[in-house]
């Protein structure tokens, strides 16, 4: 599964406005276009995952992820916070690039874990953070995925 196919321009926000970890999780969730109740449940579930250990994996990257019954297919979103945000990342550095991954409880295609691993690989690529900072439009993000995560 190509990562490019899992994003749309609607699920990409290059200028996140939030200033806190909770707010930024909500802002990312909003990119998925769920109803209010689903957003509320998803927020709780993502927070519970964060409580197990931050998904801020270092180098300015966070990958909040979970399974939740509020989605019926794998859903992804990308948000960028150019000034950075405190996400209690493992290296204590501010987070600039956030990838949200939400999978339904059961998936026929079992894409969740491979996609999670692929996103982590992509984001950890040494020159990716810089490339992400240079992007001006959502389509460029999709192009970068196409090019670097074929």
């Amino acid at each position: 599964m190509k990562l490019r196919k899992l994003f749309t321009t609607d699920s990409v926000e290059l200028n996140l406005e939030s200033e806190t970890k909770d707010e930024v999780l909500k802002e990312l969730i909003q990119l998925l276009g769920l109803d209010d109740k689903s957003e509320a449940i998803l927020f709780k579930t993502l927070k519970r995952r964060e409580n197990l250990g931050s998904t801020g994996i270092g180098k300015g990257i966070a990958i909040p992820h979970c399974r939740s019954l509020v989605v019926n297919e794998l859903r992804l979103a990308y948000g960028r916070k150019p000034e950075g945000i405190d996400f209690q990342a493992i290296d204590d550095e501010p987070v600039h690039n956030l990838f949200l991954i939400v999978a339904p409880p059961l998936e026929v295609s079992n894409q969740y874990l491979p996609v999670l691993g692929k996103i982590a690989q992509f984001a950890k690529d040494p020159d990716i953070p810089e490339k992400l900072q240079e992007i001006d439009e959502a389509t460029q993000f999709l192009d970068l995925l196409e090019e670097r995560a074929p």
Partner: protein
Amino acid sequence: MMSPDPNTDTMHPQLMLLMELQDLRSQHRELEKDDGSAPVEREHFHIDPAEARAQLAEKISELEERLDPQVRARYERIRPQRERVVVPVINGVCYGCFVSIATATVGDQEVHQELQSCENCGSFIYVVS
């Protein structure tokens, strides 16, 4: 920025609990399976799967305690039979058994504020608008 709390006032509190439980169980099960999330969580997120499972199990018990006795009884009854206790109803179809549910049942969850279940498979239902 404006970041209103998602509106859950109209949701049955017990349904909210059941959905949270369901999600926690999904993460717990995922960490348990041989081909589950444990390797990814360990490698990329530095999570100790056993510790994470223990934390989740504790939270699950805590939430189960908060279920009303009748809801709890039903939850315990459904749980061994199906992986999902709460299922979404999308376009009138129960995603537990893929049978159409009478519109009177799904109706407007916000109006009657009742905990609803599928007449066919017995799962608690959650109507996706």
